[in-house]
């Protein structure tokens, strides 16, 4: 176990090193940060002085070594825009993103397991067919479109006048399909509960939860269909296996067979894929957070790119690299718990 974790720690360091070199190498293509910091009529001499003060005129290796030297001591540089250490900026934006990912994960788990299992048990029922059809659509619709549609329906409200208003059924249908709106469409709202340190939470107040609903659904929408199909496919396979047949023969209740014996084995690949996908979800938060103006790391990163805020970009990429390594490590640990035959001693595979 110790050996395994040590090995993973080495991985994390290696990943950070590689990312930092790449991020540093591409910084010249990200644009000129000076341009964002000065007014349009500032003369070139002033710009040059600022460039010099920020050390942007130094050759690549000098800049990189200076950065690396500071980074080892935990100093990842100063964000040009936020005027704060880059790590502090990220730490301040991290809770918002984690809560969003948490909300989305919750929706995915609560919906994908029952739906996936159901469509595996009753593959030919109309409801299963509907879920399978809907999941294809779900996978194909880009997340920002889902987000905008959600905002239109639940935040702005939509008046449906598709059916003849004069008839009773038409007016009923119109009224039923129209929405009032009223859900918050942006940001985290005012009712944040301070938990600890940089963590102001949306999770512990009604107003906060309200703000979390739409972004979480939007973020979940991209992964949910994938998990439904994955669970269904795995479950179908498991249900064909010998031990399930034997359990049936033994007269165990089908509920117990489905949700205790079969589901447990279904979960192994789901956990593996899930771990990787949670990492990928960080990427999707960029889109979701932009549309909902959710003040998390994704929005911060996109703004940083637009402003060529290089220290923040480099720090963000490194942190995301670490998050990937950490989630993968946790996935491997959980995997070991679920399936004791897997050993984590770190023997070469």
């Amino acid at each position: 176990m110790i050996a395994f974790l040590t090995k993973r720690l080495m991985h994390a360091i290696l990943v950070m090193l590689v990312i930092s070199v790449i991020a540093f190498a591409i910084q010249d293509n990200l644009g000129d940060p000076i341009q964002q910091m000065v007014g349009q009529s500032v003369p070139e001499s002033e710009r040059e002085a600022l460039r010099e003060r920020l050390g942007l005129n130094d050759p690549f290796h000098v800049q990189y070594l200076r950065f690396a030297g500071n980074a080892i001591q935990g100093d990842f540089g100063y964000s040009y825009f936020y005027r704060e250490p880059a790590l502090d900026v990220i730490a301040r934006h991290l809770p918002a993103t984690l809560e969003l990912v948490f909300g989305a994960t919750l929706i995915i788990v609560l919906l994908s397991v029952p739906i996936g299992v159901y469509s595996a048990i009753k593959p030919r029922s109309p409801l299963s067919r509907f879920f399978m059809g809907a999941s294809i659509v779900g996978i194909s619709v880009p997340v920002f479109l889902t987000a905008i549609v959600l905002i239109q329906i639940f935040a702005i409200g939509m008046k449906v006048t598709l059916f003849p208003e004069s008839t009773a059924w038409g007016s009923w249908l119109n009224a039923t399909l129209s929405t009032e709106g009223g859900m918050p469409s942006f940001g985290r709202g005012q009712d944040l509960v301070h938990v600890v340190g940089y963590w102001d939470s949306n999770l512990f107040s009604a107003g906060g939860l309200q703000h979390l609903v739409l972004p979480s659904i939007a973020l979940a929408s991209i992964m949910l269909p994938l998990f439904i199909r994955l669970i269904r496919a795995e479950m179908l396979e498991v249900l064909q296996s010998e031990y399930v047949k034997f359990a049936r023969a033994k007269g165990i209740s089908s509920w117990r067979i489905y949700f205790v014996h079969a589901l447990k084995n279904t979960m192994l690949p789901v956990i593996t894929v899930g771990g990787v996908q949670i990492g990928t979800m960080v990427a999707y938060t960029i889109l979701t957070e932009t549309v909902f103006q959710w003040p998390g790391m994704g929005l911060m990163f996109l703004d940083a790119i637009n402003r060529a805020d290089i220290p923040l970009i480099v720090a963000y990429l490194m942190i995301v690299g670490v998050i990937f390594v950490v989630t993968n490590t946790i996935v491997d640990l959980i995997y070991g718990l679920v399936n004791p035959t897997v050993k984590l001693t770190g023997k070469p595979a």
Partner: protein
Amino acid sequence: MTFNKTLLASLVGATMTGAALLPMTANAETLRIGYSADPETLDIHEQLSGGMLRFSHLSFDPLVRWTKDFQFEPRLATSWEQVDDTTLRMTLRDDVTFHSGNTFTAEDVVWTIERLKESPDYKAIFEPIASAEAIDDTTVEITTHEPYPILLNLATYIFPMDSEFYSGTTADGDDKAEIVKSGNSFASRNVSGTGPFIVTERRQGVRVDFERFDDYWDTESPGNVDNIVLTPISENASRVAALLSGGVDFIDHVPPNDLERVREADGVNLVEIPGTRIIGFQLNEERIEAFQDPRVRLAVAYAINQEGIAQRLMRGFATPAAQFSPKGYSGHNPELTPRYDVDRALELMAEAGYEDGFEVNMIAPNNRYVNDAQIAQAVANMLARINIDVNLRTMPLAQYWPEYDTRQSDIAMIGWHADTEDSANFFQYLSACINEETGAGQYNYGSYCNEELDALVATADTETDPEKRQEMLREAERMLYEDAGYIPLHWQNLAYAARDGVDAEPILNALDFPYLGDLVIEDAN
């Protein structure tokens, strides 16, 4: 069977929670703003940008400010007179206190002007000012090196800071007055001005909270907003959605694609204002010999259909332009109008010996001006009709300016807003002969040079008689028009939107600085 039902119920439950929850209700006197950006810092001299000037008008007051029709309105200065050619005496209000409780005096004005002259962003603009002197508590004299006709324009940028509050050193030993770009200075985190609103809380990039200043001097102001919550919403569609869903009361920069939607939506009002930012193209004479021929430049000007772009591409959200100065600026010459005429353009090309045309590169940003990339594409197509084949490259802002500075392309797009709100500024930056020492022609991409024109603008800039000065600047616009030294397209309009009851129209202006201290919210929700 039960399993089916619970499953359905949980599905429906998860998706429908939204509709049942209560909409947010707003306190009648709280204004929730969704701007495309929040102020970069709290130090108003750290950066000259639209966002910072808007903030300056919230927490500070200028000596004088612009009215809707480009007249000067007294603010902290109540009256002013020209003592001699180079000295302006201003009388200040005697009943003003800063947020810190300190009393505002002429010394604060002097201190602020001296700080402006140190600011990297403002020093070029304040260069004409030689010194400022406090005669007594309510009188200040500003002296310029030479007769300077637009000193009052500069006075709109003088937002007196609390000199006592910003003097001394911090616990870390830093000077409280120092201006540090993108640094963690005292002034970038603390603020004490005379303005209608005090900053109560600020999280950069997330929100800024303001509260009305109880001792605000302007008791005549009709403004009744007690609190402001400013949330930056950079994504256009999200900003509009935030207003339509009632999440905010007031937004800026309504994108052209959403104008119709906002105009027709219930409960919100759109306010459109002709802006002062000129959008146009510069032809690089260094790289393309043909552009040194005024006939070819004129042909380009004739080939571009400004009206068409403003009508169709911008959906009426722009005022077609044939000169730098927008209406209201002293140099605006009403005789100069767009001259779209492809036949004439072809004739000019033939006269210059380029009837077969030539090939050029063009660069344009794709996220700086409204519809910038599409405009560039349209212009490229229009130039193809006079046989100028354009290879267009568009790029994001952060990459555009470094590319622009290399001057390695043949045609470049640029938008310009005169920081001084004065016509001469356009000429000095965009069309003056390049002079590295004086900084003239810093944004003259094409290296266009017309010494006669430069001399005229220089004379105008020391002419203190407004009538004569106006005459000269109008003549300068005409000269540039006839020489096609810059290819103007249009002045980009401004669009704000507010919910019913927020009476935004009276406090908005072409400068893009809403005077929120005077905003009236009429209703209660």
